[in-house]
């Protein structure tokens, strides 16, 4: 058997993150189908999955590329509304729900990617925090554009307007996007299974990218830009690669997220949402994939679990955030934690070799 600890760090990250997701699916899927978990939690399963994808994709920009993005919700928004428009207009043409969902997710990803490209080309050439400023503005601009966008579909095709429904000029058409009300009459075709598949896809893309020539180039740029340039790495090209990949994945998550609700408004994807995703990434650890997944689940569920504190809910949430930040950044606590985990590991290994009571087991414990 290959020893887990002897594997490379990236292989361990891959195995750990895939198994967490698959294990969660194996436990929660039957529970959800049998109706054992209560309704409020089972309703959160798809949003949690999509938030994990949003956080993982933002981690690509913030953790692996080392650029700060404050408008990640903007890409989610682009993906959500283009996805909804795609799904609604294909309602009669493509009948299987899962297929329509896949098409919507792909279209959401493509459009978010195009927007990412348009933003990235001018901004990623610059050094400094310009990306943060521009993405911050972009998030707000997208929100306001969608707020006054009207989209409808009839048998002639899609109709767009920036004024009102009447000016769409439809006959017997359906309204998909109704200005400030957002998308209305969405078919709720999102499912927990789709969410898990999207997370697995995201992990596949990110882990593969990180362990490739392109991924090494991205991390080289983050670690030492001048050295990266000196070995012939084109800075703009690889910054764009990482940024667009991040935008595409965010757009896919947005499309799936929107399909989980019957209506969804643009103000759902505002600055606060961008910051929320950023908090998941920062507390999970920049560039840390397993940490991002865990922190997203915990921090997303926390407000739900704190519901009984009603008014003090967000106060407690904030205090917990601060405490986590202090604990994860305090060297002394880090040392205590490292010692504790080392002690637990050695105890476990001893216990295991005792139960096995074989020379090989002992050897393993010694080497491991």
């Amino acid at each position: 058997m290959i020893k887990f600890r002897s594997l490379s760090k990236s292989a361990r990250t891959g195995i750990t993150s895939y198994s967490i997701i698959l294990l969660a699916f194996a436990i929660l899927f039957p529970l959800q189908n049998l109706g054992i978990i209560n309704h409020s939690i089972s309703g959160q399963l798809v949003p949690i999955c999509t938030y994990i994808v949003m956080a993982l994709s933002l981690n690509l920009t913030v953790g692996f590329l080392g650029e700060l993005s404050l408008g990640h919700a903007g890409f989610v928004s682009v993906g959500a509304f283009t996805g909804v428009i795609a799904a609604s207009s294909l309602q009669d043409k493509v009948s299987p729900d899962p297929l329509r969902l896949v098409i919507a997710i792909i279209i959401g990803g493509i459009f978010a990617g195009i927007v990412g490209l348009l933003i990235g080309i001018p901004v990623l050439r610059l050094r400094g925090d310009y990306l943060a400023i521009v993405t911050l503005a972009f998030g707000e601009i997208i929100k306001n554009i969608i707020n006054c966008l009207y989209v409808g579909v009839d048998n002639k095709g899609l109709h767009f307007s920036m004024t009102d429904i009447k000016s769409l000029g439809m006959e017997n058409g359906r309204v998909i996007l109704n200005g400030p009300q957002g998308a209305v009459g969405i078919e709720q075709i999102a499912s927990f299974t789709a969410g898990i598949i999207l997370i697995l896809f995201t992990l596949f893309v990110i882990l593969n990218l990180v362990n490739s020539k392109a991924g090494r180039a991205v991390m080289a740029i983050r670690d030492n830009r001048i050295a990266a340039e000196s070995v012939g790495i084109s800075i703009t090209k690889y910054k764009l690669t990482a940024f667009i990949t991040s935008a595409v994945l965010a757009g896919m998550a947005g499309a799936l997220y929107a399909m989980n609700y019957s209506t969804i408004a643009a103000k759902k994807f505002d600055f606060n949402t961008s910051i929320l995703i950023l908090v998941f990434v920062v507390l999970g650890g920049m560039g840390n994939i397993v940490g991002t997944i865990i922190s997203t689940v915990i921090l997303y569920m926390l407000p739900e679990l704190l519901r009984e504190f009603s008014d003090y809910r967000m106060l407690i949430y904030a205090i917990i955030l601060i405490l986590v930040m202090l604990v994860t950044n305090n060297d002394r606590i880090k040392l205590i934690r490292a010692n504790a985990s080392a002690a637990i590991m050695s105890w476990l290994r001893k216990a295991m070799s005792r139960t096995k009571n074989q020379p090989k087991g002992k050897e393993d414990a010694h080497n491991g």
Partner: protein
Amino acid sequence: MDRMVPYPSNSIVPERDVDKRPVLETHHLGIDFGGLTAVDDFSITVGRSEIAGLIGPNGAGKTTVFNLLTNVYQPTRGDIILDGVSTSRKTTAQINKMGIARTFQNIRLFANMSVMDNVKIGMHNSINQNLLSAFTHGFGYRRSEKASRDEAMELLEFFNMEDVAGAEAGALPYGAQRRLEIARALATHPKIILLDEPAAGMNPSETAELMENIRRIRDNFNIAVMLIEHDMNLVMNICEGICVLDHGKVIAKGSPDEIKSDAKVIEAYLGKKKEADNNA
């Protein structure tokens, strides 16, 4: 040591390189920072297999010359011709692709990555891997990764570093970090490698090993070497052509023997001689 002969007319290269096109030429290169002229009228020629030295007192503009050659700074005046092609308006990355690799005075490794990954990043432009295979880990991914791993390992073996391939680059001892930086630069398949104070902070035995390594680099990889160094023992021992810079200007060019006895060089390093010394 090879006799130095003029090429084309006002420069000198080792005899064996005379018939070949020089790997690097600069013509009247200069840069101003605001009103300050950091380097002026810098013209040199480096032969295809030459080990060239760039020396001078602190603040003479030696590292600035390296930054000009790699276009970290855009030259205000003059031309750089690399193997017959001008490098003007090229980015640092493009110049590296054209054949100039370098190391840095203050080591710039990718400290959090493994030694192997540092070398692989150096091989960036020679690894045949597109984005599709990067995202899917199919379509030739394994083949390209294996090829790059093998080549990186060969380079590490050249520097006796194969045992630390998996170690974190930042955790290596100082001398090993310097060697790794050279290995990473060589991984880019350069025609000329620029070494910025490769012996800084090394003890005599490490310096001796470095000298041997620099000769081996020139002979095995068939490239030219240009180095900035304050260790005169090293410079005088391995460099064939030496250029002395003071206050941004070339004050002397020639073989080590010529440089050692050049009055201007002695003045730049030791100050002006007294009348009495001159007469003695």
